[in-house]
């Protein structure tokens, strides 16, 4: 039998005060936490529930268990959408990382950068995606757009741009890279500015060339920042929607039909909310998986 006054149970005064403080803090932040959990958890749970239902065109609802997921696996449109999503994701990511790092290096080494130039760099990703999409739709119009006008006046053949089944993915990747490379550049610039100068001084003393410095010092040290930028861009790129919806709506044919576009159309144009929920949950799982994988990578390259 344990005595009530045994030393193992009685707490010293400080920890008791700390516990009390923790309780107070928890009570004060409870409303915000509950709200956040509710706002995130409830829609997810509801979507999971919806994905187990089937909706006919007239709105009649019936429980089908894993039927929607079984249909998903046998749906060619889904696998094609997955392929389009991944192709667009990889192409855009590579473009944005390569040019983002390059742009960050340029900005880092620029002696002075006027406010106007800085604003110009930031403006693309400050623009609403709809505005960017409409702007590029006009510029890239094969008949009356500026892009083909420039190409033809340089003697180059005009392109169908967004209307070509082969070039629509690279074109959309280019538009997105135009918009978001400055964002990546800003992140990498922050990383560059936090690098320890002592390593560079040592390299200089040892007579390392600029290229070797970049390859052996800058790049490895920048890897955590680059992986951070990758995570931030991946979350957006895997859910690619805005530009495609404004410009091609998944076309021509289904050449730019990413999973998000497909799920959206299934849900809101064909009113098959159950199947759309299953599609969107699959996409969420993919994004989640990618973020987890990249987080691991970032821990691996940390220094």
């Amino acid at each position, binding site marked *: 039998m344990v005595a009530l006054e045994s030393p193992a149970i009685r707490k010293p005064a400080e920890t008791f005060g700390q516990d009390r403080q923790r309780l107070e803090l928890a009570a004060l932040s409870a409303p915000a936490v509950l709200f956040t959990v509710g706002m995130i958890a409830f829609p997810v749970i509801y979507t999971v529930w919806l994905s187990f239902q089937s909706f*006919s*065109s*007239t*709105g009649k609802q019936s429980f089908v268990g894993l039927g929607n997921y079984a249909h998903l696996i046998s749906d060619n449109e889904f696998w094609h959408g997955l392929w389009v999503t991944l192709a667009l994701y990889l192409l855009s990511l590579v473009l944005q990382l390569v040019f983002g790092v390059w742009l960050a290096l340029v900005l880092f080494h620029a002696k002075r950068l006027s406010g106007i130039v800085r604003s110009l760099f930031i403006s693309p990703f400050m623009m609403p995606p709809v505005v960017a999409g409409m702007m590029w739709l006009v510029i890239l*119009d*094969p*008949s*009356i757009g500026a892009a083909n006008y420039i190409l033809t006046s340089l003697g180059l053949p*005009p392109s*169908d*741009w*967004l*209307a*070509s*089944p082969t070039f629509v993915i690279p074109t959309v990747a280019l538009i997105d890279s135009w918009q978001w490379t400055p964002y990546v550049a800003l992140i990498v610039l922050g990383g560059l500015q936090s690098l320890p100068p002592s390593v560079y001084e040592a390299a200089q003393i040892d007579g390392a060339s600029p290229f070797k410095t970049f390859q052996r010092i800058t790049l490895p040290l920048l890897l955590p920042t680059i992986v951070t930028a990758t995570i931030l861009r991946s979350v957006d790129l895997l859910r690619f929607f805005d530009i495609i919806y404004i*410009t*091609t*709506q*998944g*076309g*021509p*044919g*289904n050449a730019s039909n990413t999973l998000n576009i497909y799920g959206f*159309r299934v849900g*809101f*144009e*064909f*009113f098959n*909310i159950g199947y759309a929920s299953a599609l969107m949950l699959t996409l969420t799982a993919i994004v989640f998986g990618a973020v987890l994988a990249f987080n691991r990578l970032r821990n691996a390259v940390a220094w």
Partner: protein
Amino acid sequence: MTAKSVAAGLTLSIITASAIVSAAHAADFDWKKFQGKTVSFLANNNPVSQTLLKHKADFEKLTGITLKVDMYQEQQMRQRLVTVMNAHSDEADVFMTLPSREGAQFAAAGWYADLTPMTKNEVAPDYDYAGLSQALLKAATYNGKLTSMPMNIEGPVLYYRTDIFKKCGVDQPKTIGDIEAAAKKIKACDPSITPFVSRGLKPALPYTFSNFLHNMGGSYMVNGKSALCTPKDKAALDTYSHLLRAYGPPGVVNYSFPQISALYRAGRAAMDFEASNELPTVMEGGARLKDTGLIPLPPGDGGQVPTTIGWGIAVSAYSKQPDAAWYFVQWATSPAVQKLMAVQGIAPPRSSVADDPTYRKWINEQPVRKEWQAALDVLASKGTSEVGYPIVANPQSREFIGQAVQSLILKEKTVDQACADADKALDALIAQK
């Protein structure tokens, strides 16, 4: 008193009594009945609603009702509507709807309030319900319920450049075959002009393609099954896709009405098969006012069966104030307002407005307007609203039609392959109840 005078007196008193009763009834209708209320209107951003809402202040002054407007681009508006309706929300009292596309679906889902009793009881004396196009009213009636009031009448028409036709020695096409011949001649005569432009964007092309199909004697469904592989349907698929592939602008698979109208207005296209209510957009700036001719799609083997649809304005079944909402609906579709909209290029679904002298004056100002009205008269009398399959899942059926045509434009499939794939998918869709 003679019997005659008694009879006369009696008749007179009956007439007076009924006159007083009807005057009292007419006086019963008070535009200001719902003064102070707010009606929310979920609108599509197209020329019809833009023109209507130019006169928003008139409505608010007449009724004292505040009109709250939420305007979105067409597909986004539809998505917003679906979200609001699925939640049974009273957020939208009144909304625009396209019976030819979603009428069956929304009616089956119970989203429309039945307007039949309102058109009989709470209606202004000069509303002229009987003057509305019976065909459009019929298209908006499901299971005996009138689901929306027609705002306009429209359909695809062929705009063409009379000056280019003259230059290249081409006559006005009298049959569908003539269109291809004209396009060929124009391409040889002036390679810098796009001979023919129409919709190639997958969800949008059934609107223009259906007219080709019906004029060439085809039909989407035969005996409850998809009929795209029948000879006439295959001919229509082939003709439409070939016209766009051989004589259309580069990138036509992305083209819907904004790009088409922009191309024609800029003078870069010789023939433009697009919606009749693109007239104001095409004529903007006046460059095309004098050199444009306008006809309905010429007949093919199936005669002339133009596609005729109209936007409707409906009251939500979940609205908490359907009567106040109805006041807006009847104002928006009243002869007075439709007359105002008519002279701004929104074709009225009322013959009375079409015959109105002010409107006639506007029509007679420009030859192209006369041709436009003549084309609309053909649409009103001979038209069909069948754009896509006559099933509840009409929007999804348009996806498969669009896929078939696009795969032909892009030369990804042969006609036989495209129609077979589409038939398979559509039969599965039809079988779904």
